[in-house]
């Protein structure tokens, strides 16, 4: 699938076909995509535990629910629990030097082993790793980058996905999560029982509401023709039709015996 089409097709899927298993190969594609994400100091900020429906008992699944993670957890054949690792700085010096040796961090930009030891690691990474707020920020942002690549890879593989909250205390116990990992998102994965595009694109504010040129207060202005091109290429698609969606939800509720 073309890249822009993948972005356009991705929507949170809340109705999965619980009886259609997901191929482990496709899960690996998602993990490989996450593993290729951009990351500071070439660190492994993100961790994930893949859990197939039958790996946990029903009581544990029930305990993993939150006020906003409900039926979708019952329907998804696969759950990926994403975490951020607060020990990301361990080994950073060696990884940075490896990048220097490879030329990814080139001498033209001031990089050397000495610069890694004295400045990049000594004055930036190591102090930051002792600052909980800064570390949490870094771990969260870097994990988000990886998680998003896994989301898009799933769409490209024809799967439905969505990110949800989960009861982290239950997960920590059930999955033997280390103390240094902090919970990020629960990604539910499966084949969509609903329209695989989630019934159409969700409302978004126009670019000028959030993006600026030069300075805050000077909104980005649409470049003529770009939106038309993105519609043709699949990134911008039709918005949700509430009547059509209501009919679909009714049909799904009848199929799965859900409340209406």
């Amino acid at each position, binding site marked *: 699938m073309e890249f822009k089409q993948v972005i356009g097709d991705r929507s949170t899927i809340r109705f999965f076909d*619980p009886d259609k298993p997901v191929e482990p190969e496709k899960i690996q594609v998602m993990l490989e995509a996450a593993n290729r994400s951009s990351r500071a100091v070439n660190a492994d900020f993100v961790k994930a535990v893949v859990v197939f*429906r039958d790996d946990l008992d*029903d009581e544990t*699944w029930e305990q993993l629910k939150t*006020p906003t993670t*409900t039926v979708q957890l*019952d329907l998804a054949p696969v759950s990926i629990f994403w975490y951020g690792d607060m020990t990301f700085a361990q080994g950073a010096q060696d990884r940075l030097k490896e990048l220097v040796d490879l030329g990814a961090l080139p001498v033209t930009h001031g990089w050397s082993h000495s610069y890694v030891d004295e400045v990049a690691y000594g004055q930036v990474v190591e102090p930051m790793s002792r600052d909980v707020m800064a570390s949490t920020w870094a771990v969260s942002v870097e994990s988000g980058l990886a998680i998003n690549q896994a989301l898009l890879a799933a769409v490209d593989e024809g799967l439905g996905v969505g990110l949800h909250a989960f009861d982290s205390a239950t997960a920590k116990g059930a999955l033997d999560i280390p103390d240094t990992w902090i919970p990020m998102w629960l990604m539910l994965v499966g084949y969509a029982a609903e329209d695989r595009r989630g019934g159409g694109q969700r409302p978004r504010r126009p670019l000028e509401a959030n993006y600026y040129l030069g300075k805050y207060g000077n909104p980005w202005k649409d470049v003529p023709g770009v939106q038309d091109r993105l519609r043709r290429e699949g990134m911008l698609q039709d918005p949700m039709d509430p009547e059509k969606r209501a009919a679909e939800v009714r049909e799904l509720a009848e199929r*799965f*015996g859900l*409340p209406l």
Partner: protein
Amino acid sequence: MTTAADIRDAETVRHWFASAKHDGASAEDQERICGVLAGFADLTAKTPDELVAFCFLRKKDTGQRFLSVKRRVQMNEWIDEYVAQQGWEGKDAVVNANVIRGFLIHNGVAIGGNVWRKRPAKE
């Protein structure tokens, strides 16, 4: 014994029908789901309005209303008891239990129930 007609004009039932667009359903369907709720009202000895009110408590300091987790658990236990009492099995058990949950959800009580699957989640 409470009948569908007895509860149809309760405020929470009217709200449920309007919110879920059950007003547009066939008379037979309306009668059926109201009948399910009426039977549940009998089992719990509570009117529909009382069932909704039961799920909420108020904070002692601020008086703010909040959903009680324990009372939702109690509600799910009553629903299970009702399903067993009626002898519903398979998809009927899930669907009828979720009729009651639908009534509660439309009245602001987020309550989770079961999902009907062709095969059980776990043997």
